[in-house]
C-alpha cells in the first residue's frame, strides 16, 4: 500500500469519527431550544454535551493537523480557497466552546441564558459551514490561471451550497436528538424523540432538494464522475432515512442513531468516492482536478510522519474509548462542570 493511500485512510477515519461524534454534540446544541425549554432540561442537555465535546472537538484539530502534515497542498488550497466559510467555521467553534466553558462559571440566570443563545447560534452556524464546505469541495470549482481556487459570491451563494448548508443543520439536529434520546431520560428524552420524529420526513425532503439543485447545476453535474455509484449511495441514504423513521416511530433511539450515523458516513463517502480519481474537480480548466498524488506530501515526508505516529495511533484510539466508557453515565452526586 502506498503512503498517500495509507494517510488518506487515516484522514477518512478521522473525518467519519469527527462527523459522527461532533455531529451529535452540535446537533444536541442546535435542538436545545426545542428539547430543553426549561432550565433543568437545558442543564441536563448541556451537561451531556459537556461530557463529550472535549474529546470530540479535538478531532477537528486532528483533521487539520493531518492535512497540514500529509496533504499540505490540499490544506492550503481548500482552507484559503474557502476563506469566508472557514472564517464562519472557526468563529462558530470558538464561540461554541466559549459558551460551553463560560456558561456555568457564574450563577446568574441572564449570564447563563446569554451563553445558551450563543451556543445554539454558533452550533447551527458550525453545521451550516460543514455543509457549505462539503458542497464546495464536491462541485467543480473555478480556478485561476496559476491553478488556485477562485471561489466567489456566485459559488458561495449557489442554490446547491445553500441547500447543502441547511441540510447539514437538519441532519445533525436529527442525529443529536437521537443521541439525546439515548443518553438522557425523563421529559428531555421524550421531547428529543418527538422532535426527531417530526424532523425525519424533512430529511427526505432535504435529500430530494439537494439532488434537484445538484442536477440543475452544471458544475455539480460535471463533478460526479461515477453516476452509477452516486445513485447507489443516494438510494442507500434514503433507505437509511426510511429505517430511521421506522425505528423512531417504534421508540428505539439506539437503532435510529445507528441509522443516522450510517447515513452521515454514506454522505461523506459519496463526497469522496464518486469523484475518483479527483479530490478537487476544476471547472473549465486545462487540468481536470487535484488527484491524491497532487495533494499528498512527498514520500519521505509521509514516511517520516508515519514512523513518528504509528506507535501512537493505537494509544489515541484506546484513550478515546476509555474516555467514552467513563463519561457515558451522568455524573451523579457531583457538580456538573459544564
Amino acid at each position: 500500500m502506498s503512503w498517500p493511500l495509507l494517510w488518506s485512510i487515516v484522514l477518512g477515519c478521522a473525518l467519519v469519527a469527527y462527523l459522527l461524534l461532533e455531529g451529535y454534540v452540535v446537533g444536541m446544541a442546535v435542538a436545545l431550544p426545542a428539547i430543553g425549554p426549561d432550565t433543568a432540561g437545558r442543564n441536563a442537555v448541556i451537561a451531556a454535551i459537556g461530557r463529550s465535546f472535549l474529546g470530540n472537538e479535538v478531532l477537528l484539530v486532528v483533521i487539520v493537523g493531518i492535512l497540514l502534515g500529509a496533504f499540505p497542498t490540499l490544506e492550503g488550497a481548500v482552507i484559503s480557497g474557502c476563506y469566508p466559510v472557514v472564517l464562519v467555521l472557526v468563529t462558530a467553534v470558538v464561540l461554541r466552546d466559549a459558551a460551553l466553558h463560560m456558561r456555568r462559571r457564574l450563577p446568574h440566570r441572564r449570564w447563563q441564558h446569554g451563553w445558551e443563545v450563543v451556543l445554539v447560534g454558533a452550533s447551527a452556524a458550525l453545521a451550516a459551514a460543514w455543509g457549505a464546505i462539503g458542497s464546495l469541495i464536491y462541485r467543480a470549482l473555478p480556478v485561476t490561471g496559476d491553478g488556485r481556487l477562485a471561489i466567489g459570491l456566485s459559488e458561495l451563494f449557489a442554490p446547491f451550497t445553500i441547500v447543502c448548508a441547511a441540510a447539514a443543520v437538519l441532519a445533525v439536529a436529527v442525529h443529536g436528538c437521537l443521541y439525546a434520546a439515548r443518553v438522557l431520560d425523563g421529559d428531555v428524552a421524550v421531547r428529543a424523540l418527538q422532535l426527531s420524529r417530526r424532523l425525519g420526513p424533512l430529511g427526505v425532503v432535504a435529500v430530494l432538494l439537494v439532488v434537484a439543485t445538484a442536477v440543475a447545476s452544471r458544475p455539480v453535474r460535471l463533478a460526479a464522475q461515477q453516476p452509477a455509484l452516486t445513485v447507489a449511495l443516494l438510494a442507500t441514504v434514503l433507505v437509511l432515512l426510511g429505517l430511521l423513521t421506522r425505528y423512531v416511530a417504534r421508540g428505539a433511539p439506539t437503532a435510529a442513531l445507528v441509522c443516522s450515523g450510517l447515513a452521515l458516513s454514506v454522505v461523506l463517502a459519496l463526497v469522496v468516492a464518486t469523484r475518483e480519481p479527483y479530490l478537487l474537480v476544476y471547472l473549465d480548466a486545462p487540468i481536470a482536478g487535484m488527484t491524491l498524488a497532487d495533494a499528498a506530501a512527498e514520500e519521505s515526508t509521509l514516511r517520516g510522519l508515519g514512523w513518528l505516529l504509528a506507535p501512537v495511533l493505537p494509544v489515541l484510539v484506546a484513550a478515546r474509548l476509555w474516555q467514552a466508557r467513563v463519561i457515558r453515565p451522568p455524573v451523579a452526586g457531583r457538580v456538573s462542570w459544564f
Partner: protein
Amino acid sequence: MDPQDVARLQFAVTSSIHYMFVALTLGLVAIVVIVQTRWTITRQPLLERMTKFWGQLYVINYALGIVTGLVMEFQLGLNWAGLTSFSEVFGVGLAVETLTAFFLESVFLGLWIFGWGRLNRWVHLALIWLVAITAYLSAFWVLVANSFMQHPVGHTTVDGRMVVGDLTELLANPTLWTTLPHVVTASLTTGVFVVAGVSAYHLWRGTAATDFFIRSLRLAGWLAPVVAPLTVTFGLNQFPLILEEQPTKLVATQPELAAEQERRFVEQFGPDDYLPSATPLAVAEHLMFFIGLLLALLSIVTAFALIRRAIVRSRLLRPLLVVLVAAIPLPFVANASGWIFREYGRQPWAIYGVLRVDDAVSPGVSTGAMLTSLVLFTVLLATLAVINCALLIRHARRGPEGWLIGDPIDAYGEHRPLSERALALSGKDNAP
C-alpha cells in the same frame, strides 16, 4: 496595506493572546500535579481543596488556550498557505503535535474533570500526570516546527519544495534544544508567580483560608527561586547560537555582525532589506531580560521571607505580599516580549535564509478578506480573553470556600452547585 502586513499583524495579535493562556496552562498544570500527588499520598483534606482550587483555575484558563490555538491552526491554512505548501517539514511538527499531544491532552483532561469521585484516586492522579506530560509534549512539537523556521535543518529539496530528509537531524535541531528549557522554565515561572500572587492577595486581605494560602505560597515560594533564575540562565544560553545562526536578530546589540550577515544575504539573494528594525527588538529584548532578573530577585527575597511564616507575621515584610500581587502581570509581559524578540527578529524570513514572509502568504487572498479576518479574530479573541481573565480573577478572589470542580452535590437538585443552594437558603449573594 499589503496582504502580508495584515497577515503578519493578525498572526502577532492572535499568537500573543494564545501564548498568554498557554504559558499559564503549562505553569499551573505543574502545580496541580505536585499538589494532587501529595494529596493522593497523604490524603490530607487541605491538599484536596488545593488540588481542586488550582485545578479549577487551570481548567478555566485552558478554555481560552484551546480556542485561540484553533484559530492559530486554521490561520496557517487561511493566510500562510505559501509556507505550508513550500515546506512540508513545518506541517509535520504541527501534525505530530495535534495527533499525539493535543488530542491526548484533551481526552485526558476530560477524564480528569469527570473522573472526580468515580475513578480510583491513583488512576485519577495518573490522569493529571498524563495531562501535564501531553501538554509539555505539545509545547515540544510546536517548538520543533518553530525551530525549523528559525534554523531549517533535516530537510531535502524535491521539485523546489522542502520535504522531510533526516528525521533525527530535524529533532536534534540545536535551536530546539536551547529554546525548549527556556520556554519550559518561563512557563513554570509564570504559573508559580500566579500562584504566589493569588495566595499573597488572600493573605494580605486576611481572608479565612490563611492556612490554605500560606501552604500554596510556600509551594510557589519554594519553586520560584529554582525556576526564575533558571529561566534567565537558559535565556542567555541561547545567545551564542543566535550569534552563529541568526546574527540579524541581534541588529540592536551587535550591529556589525548583523550587517555582515546582511551582506551575505545580498550576495546570495540579491539586494533587499534583510534586517528587522532595531528599536522593537531592543525594547522586547531588554523588557524580557529585566523582568527576568526582577522575578529572579523577587523569588529569592520571597523564599527568605517565608522562613517561619515571616511574610505574614512581620509587619516589615507584609508589603512584600502586595509586591507579589503586583508582579502577576510581569511574567506575561516577559513571555510576550520573548516571542516578539524571537519571531520579529526572524524577519524578513518565514524560514530563515530560505523563504521570505512575502512568499509565505496565501497567494490570491485579497487584502479585504485578510482585513475582515484580522478584525473578526482580534475582536473575538480579545473579548473572550478579557471575559476569561475576569472569570479567572473572580474565581481566584473567591478562594476555596465556594463550590469547586468535582465537589459532591447536594441532595436537593441533581445539577445544582452547592453555592446555588446556599444562595437559595441564605438569600444573599455568596455565589461563585
